[in-house]
């Protein structure tokens, strides 16, 4: 079933896009990540122009995070004060990221930068997750009790001024810490079309030292607003948001996410984390290969 995408200016097989969204949604439901890190590269491989892919993938992540946020709010799993500071930083980061995006686009290096940032980010986070999950599985197998991790924030965070209380996170830290963290993730959201959950969650745990119960909900809360902002920034600057493409992706991903969430409840979280780490590393490896391989097309054309 072919459908014409009015902004990407080409026709695609609607079923392929819905299934692609469904597959990513399945993973995002299983692992609790937005899945933007998979959507953008897959769309590019399918032949969608990179800018349109990054701009439209953000709205898919918005859709994926909405139902998660509602569920976590009901369970009181969102620290709204912490989330508010993260979102504020994220919105500024999104606008700043939009500026970087245009700058890189003008110099013709946007695709290379996107690929390198992906490789570095996914490579390091994937290996960290893999070691952590592997260790957890080994401990589980040998029946050894996991060492209770001391919840502490990073010394750098403690050195920031104007401390305030975050009751649900159980923290007394400076608001600049979540602001800066949100800012960085906001930039990545615009550049890569990702929600940033896979960076935000470890950062909240290990840098800020938040209570585990509110980490995922608060991360989704930030993702919801910042990806919405990313869509707005792209809509007004690059004008590359393809609403038909986004709708097809959403259709698949929201359905896939629900199925994935049900499946995840039956599998041990350690195995899920290891599986996610493997997928992340595979994507990073594929992109790294693409950077070094002689490209199919040495020349590329853009309108000026």
């Amino acid at each position, binding site marked *: 079933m*072919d*459908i*014409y995408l*009015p*902004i990407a*200016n*080409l*026709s695609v097989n609607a079923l392929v896009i819905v299934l692609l969204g469904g597959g990513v949604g399945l993973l995002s439901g299983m692992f609790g990540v937005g899945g933007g890190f998979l959507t953008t590269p897959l769309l590019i491989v399918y032949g969608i122009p990179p800018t349109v892919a990054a701009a439209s993938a953000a*709205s*898919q992540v*918005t*859709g*994926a*995070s*909405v*139902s998660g946020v*509602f*569920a976590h709010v009901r369970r009181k799993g969102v620290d709204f004060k912490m989330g508010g500071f993260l979102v504020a930083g994220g919105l500024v980061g999104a606008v700043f990221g939009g500026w970087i995006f245009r700058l890189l686009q003008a110099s*013709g*290096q946007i*695709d*290379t930068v996107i690929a*390198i940032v992906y490789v570095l980010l996914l490579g390091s986070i994937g290996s960290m997750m893999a070691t952590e999950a592997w260790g957890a599985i080994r401990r589980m197998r040998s029946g050894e009790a996991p060492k209770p991790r001391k919840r502490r924030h990073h010394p750098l965070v403690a050195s920031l001024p104007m401390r305030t209380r975050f009751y649900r996170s159980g923290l007394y830290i400076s608001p600049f810490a979540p602001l800066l963290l949100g800012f960085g993730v906001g930039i990545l959201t615009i550049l890569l079309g990702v929600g940033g959950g896979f960076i935000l969650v470890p950062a909240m745990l290990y840098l800020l030292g938040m209570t585990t119960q509110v980490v995922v909900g608060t991360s989704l809360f930030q993702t919801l607003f910042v990806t*919405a902002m990313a*869509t*707005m920034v*792209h*809509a*007004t600057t690059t*004008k590359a*948001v393809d*609403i*038909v493409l*986004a*709708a097809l992706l*959403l*259709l698949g991903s*929201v*359905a896939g*996410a*629900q199925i994935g*969430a049900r499946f995840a409840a039956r599998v041990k979280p350690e195995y899920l984390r290891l599986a996610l780490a493997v997928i992340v590393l595979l994507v990073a490896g594929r992109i790294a290969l693409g*950077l*070094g*391989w*002689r*490209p199919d*097309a*040495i*020349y*590329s*054309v*853009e*309108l*000026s």
Partner: protein
Amino acid sequence: MKRGWLAVLAAPLLMAQSAPRPATKPVLVPDVSQRDIEIQYSFTGANLLLFGAILYPGGRLPDDDKPTDIVVVVKGPVQSILVREKQKLGGLIWVNASRLRYRSAPSFYAIASSKPIARMLDARTRAIYELGLSSLQLSPASSAPLQEQDRFARGLVDLKTRTGLYVEAPGAVEITDGVLYRARVAIPARVPVGRFTAETFLIRDGRVLAAATRDIEIRKSGFERFVARSAERQSVLYGLAAVALSVLFGWGAGVIARRL
């Protein structure tokens, strides 16, 4: 389409009426199967039929045995484009290194002919009429050395050929009884919108004897037109609509999943 065939059928009659012109040159009466191509949700490209008649003065076919050839060129609106060339950086990764800007490169260019163009016209004539992918006047907006310009032009043509936007189809024009001709040109879904032209050339003995042009309008219609326009002109509202859509989808799926 109907009108076109009528024109072909009526051609000999019309010619008889307009005979007083003491022209010695033949005249082309071209037409296309579709004057307007509308891009809709199911658009996967179009198949254009270009056809017409060759009217010889006095209605007599030339009696020498030199072959008559027809060339049909379909061109899309010109675009100002930037072509980038990748190079391997430090033996490690491929990055965009150099670039060349073209002020007016055709967004689409398809040439169909009754035999390879190089066998009917010399290079100079081909360049004058822009016949053939190697004879395109791309007008690079720089003073780069000729060698580099050539390299970029070849790269551009190669890239566009691969995406089906530049097409060369020798032998795709059929000539019936020396007076009727027809050719099919495929328009891919990736074409930009705008005014296209279909030019027909009559070639004999290494010379272009007659030429005629028809316009084809390609535009988005209905919902696709509405979306493209909103994205361009009402970008804030369009962005809000995209966000609202994704929130609605996500929320709706959550509600449905809880009921199940």
